[in-house]
């Protein structure tokens, strides 16, 4: 490329860049709405559905969950964020003693959102919630019991 060719090429490429940013700055001329900032506390936050906010346990309307207390998630968790407290109780249908979930304890303060527990769960009992309002003034509040009080295993999960 010649000396003057380089100069004109340089000016051309600079003008190309300036056209792009100029189009962003003057949206009235380009007739597009460009500012994509969402002013969160004033406007509702839009979180995409696969956002990993915190681990929750799904309950249906009869307060039944799908967790059998098998501890697969506890084993899968790389940093011990999940602790399962289980109990042996008599199953009213069969009359035998059976391992059941007592408390599914989840330490949000330690969780790295790696999703291994959810992949390990054989019954799809736990899942991601998109809730991100997790800030608290007390660290203890970040340790959560995922199964609701009085909830029991949904029928037919173990078959």
């Amino acid at each position, binding site marked *: 490329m010649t000396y003057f060719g380089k*100069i004109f090429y340089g000016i051309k490429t*600079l003008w190309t860049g*300036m056209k792009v*940013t100029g189009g*962003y*700055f003057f949206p009235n001329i380009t007739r597009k709405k460009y*500012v*994509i*900032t969402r*002013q969160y506390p004033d406007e509702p936050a839009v979180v995409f559905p696969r956002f990993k906010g915190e681990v929750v346990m799904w309950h249906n309307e009869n307060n039944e969950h799908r967790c059998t207390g098998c501890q697969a998630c506890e084993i899968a968790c790389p940093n011990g964020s999940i602790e399962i407290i289980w109990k042996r109780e008599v199953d009213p249908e069969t009359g035998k003693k059976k391992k059941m979930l007592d408390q599914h304890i989840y330490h949000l303060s330690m969780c790295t959102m790696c999703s291994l527990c959810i992949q390990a769960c054989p019954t799809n009992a736990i899942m991601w919630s998109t809730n991100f309002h997790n800030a608290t003034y007390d660290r203890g509040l970040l340790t959560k019991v995922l199964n609701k009080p009085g909830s029991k295993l949904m029928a037919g999960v173990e078959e």
Partner: protein
Amino acid sequence: MMNMLSINIFQTWLEQTHGIWYVLVLAGIAAIYLGFFAVAGLMLVYLERRVAGYFQLRLGPNRVGPWGLLQTIADALKLVSKEIFVPKMADKLLYKAGYYIVIIAALLALAVIPFARQIQALDFNVGLFFISAVSSVGVLGILIGAWGSRNKYSLIGAMRSGLQMISYELSAGFAIIAVVLMSGTLKMTGIVEAQKHTWFLFQGHLPAIIAFMIFLISGTAETNRVPFDLVEGESELGAGFHTEYSGMGFAFFFLAEFINMFIIAALGATLFLGGWLAPFGITDGLPAQWLWGIIWFLLKVFVLIFLLMWFRWTFPRIRIDQLLTLEWKYLLPIGLVNTVIMAWMVWKDWLIHLG
């Protein structure tokens, strides 16, 4: 308001040191300029952040005060309240002298810029020469501030700043000489009055436009702004020459940088865009000419500042070898040839005179 303070008043003041009115007038003018320095600096910081926001599909600061106008004032208050930290091994005198020199250089350059007819602190016959001399003193402050803070990053940044300033002063000088050839004077008011009918940008058509482009490029380089911000180079040098500065020391450097941008834009408006003169004289018959002058002048300055901001938020930073190639292989030879062409045009009177 402000009366024109000629060099004679300054001389007589020096001769009769007890003239209280001269002291008061000088103090008043100094206060006005310092106030302008602070307000314009803060507003330019706000403007920069806001414009940058819109260039990057963001909103910029919009929470403090109406449209976020008080954001930079809040920032300044925060910076005032912070500790001024001096590194243990620093050369304290040089470290502290650094920002004063930068600010004094910026204020001195501000003194000769005509805001409107007779609204100018100092109008003397080598105003343009004074500006180009004083604006290169600022780099001295950067150099000794960085040397005094005893930090490798600071020193590397300051050395780059010196290199850049020495290189780009030349082509800025040639762009200014092209204008001086047309105006025939170095006096700032004289240059503006010479554009009474046609601005120099149009009066000198092609060579003037080339000179204007060279002036903008070297002006961007002299104010150390992107794409010539190797001095700061966040990705390489931390913060460059002001790495060790905190609190108001940092704020002074920051303000001086923005005032320098204002000075470059004001110089561009005065030299090429007719300074305080209204385009086609559309507000000539109206009352309060000084106010109209200020309005037109600030409008032109704002357009140029916006252009500089547009450059900043579009172009990527260039390497040091590209910086030197641009100056020594492109801008300087083109500026030289351009000056010769301009001299030929002025001699043959091929300038465009409307009216």
